[in-house]
């Protein structure tokens, strides 16, 4: 009798794995300082029925000791009418560590700044997302800042949450926002070891177990990007954004003896940098399988299914890596 009960239970559990809700919506981050939508990106928005685009409006960092907006976006094109924009502001932790930070003042300035950008581009936005990797020391200031944003604007507020802030939320705290986005990438160290810094399953697994207990609902952000790390004498001397295997595979100055590393065989100026003989370049990419694996792992751990999957970032050079997998993003979304 006992064995049958167990079997019944098991089959019920198996049935539970099939989600019986609508899959989360697919969204993208847009992270360039000039907003333009060439054909490929525009098509991607259509193809994946994207209704919301998360656009970086500016960073906030310290300059000469004061918090100021840095590298703001300029809109050179309009968005398709079916797509709403959510401004995202990346705030460096140094700002939140600044002693005597007047959070009400910065909140007001930031909201005004966003309004100016919107007015300039003829955009209206109803939500704001803040991206800040806060620490125990900056936590209180940061949360007060978020509080101020909420009070001073009528908009919905969301914030990015990194894995360590999920696992240790008892000390890192729960940001006072309407919605959190779990940033499921850049979880490793940028260094000379073979393990990837963008995504490394063993590293992720140290955190997966604690996701279920996180007391707030989470959306999920997943990576679509590639980069390469320039190493000399086992030290990181540069980060090469938007480069991939092809950048180096077709260049006779580089030789791939042990993936993911390329050895520099001969001195060469390339991409505005100097590669010296003996340097190494470590290429990191996220494969379709990686994405499926991430979705699988996460869907089993999240207490609730996410309302959205936000892919970082919308760029033809990223999307081109997955041309052979037509429904990849939909598949990933459906896993949740």
């Amino acid at each position, binding site marked *: 009798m006992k064995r049958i009960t167990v079997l019944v239970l098991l089959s019920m559990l198996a049935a539970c794995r099939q989600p019986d809700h609508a899959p989360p919506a697919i969204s993208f981050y847009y992270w360039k300082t000039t907003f333009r939508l060439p054909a490929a990106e525009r098509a991607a928005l259509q193809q994946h029925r994207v209704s919301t685009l998360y656009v970086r409006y500016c960073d906030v960092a310290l*300059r*000469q000791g*004061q918090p*100021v*907006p840095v590298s*703001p976006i*300029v809109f050179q094109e309009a968005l398709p009418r079916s797509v709403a924009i959510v401004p995202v502001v990346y705030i460096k932790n140094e700002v939140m560590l600044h002693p005597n930070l007047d959070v009400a003042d910065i909140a007001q*300035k930031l909201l*005004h*700044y966003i309004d*100016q*950008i919107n007015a*300039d581009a003829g955009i209206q936005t109803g939500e704001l997302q803040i991206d800040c990797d806060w620490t125990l020391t900056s936590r209180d200031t940061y949360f007060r800042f978020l509080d101020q944003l909420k009070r001073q604007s009528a908009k919905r507020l969301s914030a990015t949450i990194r894995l360590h802030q999920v696992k240790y939320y008892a000390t890192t705290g729960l940001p006072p926002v309407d919605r959190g986005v779990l940033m499921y990438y850049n979880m490793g160290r940028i260094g000379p070891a073979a393990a990837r810094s963008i995504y490394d399953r063993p590293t992720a697994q140290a955190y997966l177990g604690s996701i279920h207990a996180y007391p707030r609902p989470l959306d999920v952000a997943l990576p679509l990007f590639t980069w390469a790390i320039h190493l000399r004498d086992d030290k990181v*001397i*540069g980060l090469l954004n938007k480069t991939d295997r092809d950048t180096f595979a077709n260049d006779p100055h580089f030789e791939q003896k042990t993936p993911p590393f390329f050895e520099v065989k001969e*001195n*060469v*100026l*390339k*991409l*505005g*940098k*100097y590669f*010296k003989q003996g340097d190494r370049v470590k290429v990191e990419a996220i494969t379709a399988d990686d994405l499926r694996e991430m979705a699988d792992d996460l869907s089993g751990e999240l207490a609730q299914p996410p309302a959205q999957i936000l892919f970082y970032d919308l760029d033809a050079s990223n999307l081109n890596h997955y041309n052979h997998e037509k429904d990849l993003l939909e598949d990933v979304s459906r896993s949740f």
Partner: protein
Amino acid sequence: MKKISWKTLAVLFSIPALALIAYGVIYACAGGDWEGYDYDSSFTPEVYVDESYAPLFYAPNDIFYGIGFDAEYVGRFNDDIVADWSTYLKGRLSTDEVSMLLLKEEGVTAVSQLYTALQKKQQPPPAFSRINLVDERVKGFIIFLNLAKEIENASTTAYEWWDYDESKKQPVVTPQTVARAEQLYAGAKDEFLKNRYWFQAMKANFYSANKQNATAFFEKTRNTVPQNTLYYRSMAYVAGVAYQQKQYATSNYLYSVVFDKCPVLRTVATYNFHPQEEADFQASLAMAKNAEEKATLWSLFGYYADEKEAIRQIYKLNPKSDHLDYLLTRLVNKEEISLNSEGFTSADEYREHLKRQVDQQTLQLVTSLAKEGKTGKPYLWNLAAGYLSVFNGDNTQATQYFSKAEKEAPPSDLATAQLRILRLINTLHSTNRLDAAVETRLLPELEWLYKTGDQETLRSMHVTSWSRRYLASLYRHQGNVVQGELFDRNRTYYRTASNLEAMKAFLQKANYTPWEKMALSLYDVNLSNIYEYEAIMAAYEGKLENAIALMQKSGNTDQLPGNPFNGKIQDCHDCDHAAAQKVKYTKLSFLQKMKEMQTHVDKSEDIYNNSLLLGNAYYNMTYFGNARAFYYNNILDQYGIYIDDHYNPQLMTCTTASRYYKMALAAATTDEQRAKCVYLMAKCERNEKFKGDPENESLAWEGFKQLKTKYAHTKYYKEVINECSYFSIYLNRGH
């Protein structure tokens, strides 16, 4: 907060890779935490290289050596233009007036009013009545300024960081103003004015909405204008436009010309030189009209990419090129910094390790070029060759290189000091053993070095600390622990009894040799410190008589800030220190009092009070008590919150205190007394077991248990509940 716009640069100029990597590090001005360029370097680049290259010396943590970020974009030529115009207007306007009109805010108003007066053929306004508007040159100056100020509105703007509109919509020079500038240039008869108008026309075009017109204007007119600073400033504009148009080869070529011909713009040219691919760098080289221009391109390449390759290429083109000098210093600095980070215990191993680490290609390159003697400054190359040879263990060759350098070099204090330092390094590297003869030879050099101390330019600090470590390692290898310790203090030296005795003996000598005197002057522990250290350690062992004798020998009179016999419920050191005390104890009188109490205990006289107070005394002597000052001593060296494991038994355990509290407990006659004793014992247990998290740890210490089960009826019990929250938590848990 206003930001002065360097909009030109933000828009056009590239940010080279290395600049980006170093970007996060802000240059700390003198006086901050920064240790100085000579933390790990002994080769001073300023010695023979022209100071126009100084910002390009090797500076791993700064964008530019000595200046950090280049912040001169707005004011770089202020002095120049005031000088130029003052000369032109000599006798008509004073330098102050010229400076005011050109540079100051009031000058803007002044120019506007004076120009209006000129147009309307009126007298100048009373504030500027001294300015003679009839004079041709003055008139010309005012008309010029009127144009220049207008252009300046676009070339130097200020905007509020937090204003998006202001920052995005910056003023540009209008086509009308561009046209006016070009007309005034074309119509000017006076040569000086014509040249200034030419530059204004360049500037106007560059800061207009059509920057490429600046290139066209430059091409049209460049052969008719003098090749002065204004010419190269304009060339830099054109180079910037080329970069924006992604014409990297042209851009980099032009910047290299600016680099070569206009030293004051060297930082700008360097910052903006940014080849993207081999092809465009080769294309730049192809544009070079002669060997000099090629050499400059390689010089910039060397700065960013590869000094060795650049040096080879430049030497082939022109062995006398000035650009070789600063590249050499960069190469040497890079090499020595990586070699100087090697630690060592044995001099032999150290030298072998160095030799293995030396970049043989660098050594080869520098020594062969030094030997050929064809460079512009052969003495610089000999100095460098000698220094690198030292690392490679070629001490004899090093000596020879240094002699040659000395013979040929132009004399200067800096050069003499530098050579002396490198010779000392060579001598030390060749020294395997120290004896009286060697010491006599080294003495004058070391005395000179240690007296020299921290200098602004001369890199003396690394060799100062390195020489001490090196000598110490030789001494230790020879078994001379005292000399080893004098030169290089070891934090654990005094933990070995024989070491301590040896140093005591040395410090008590009647006579010292000159060498010993010098070594002593470097050392910051004295005999008093040692006796005090011994006294303190004896005290922890309960050897009070010993401790007293030693403390008396030390002559130490330090006071303890609080009453060391307190045994309160809460440990509040600051409270104890601030409280009024009838009797203030020194370390000595404290020990003497303890001895008194111990004597009473030994004679069984009022055991309760005396052992209780002794318990408090031993408690307060630990890290947990209010008399931490008791163990402050420069040998013990435990002044902070992190106590060395070695001193755990003395400072981090309360075993002795506990033992006395137990004695007091046994001798107590009332429950109030007993309650106190068990509570104080609980404090001891807490100190050793508790990690600091009352929510997640057990608070069931023996003392608490006793207090709860046996002494709940006492007044003391109530006091504890009042003052000790841990006890309340413990009670609430109801164990």
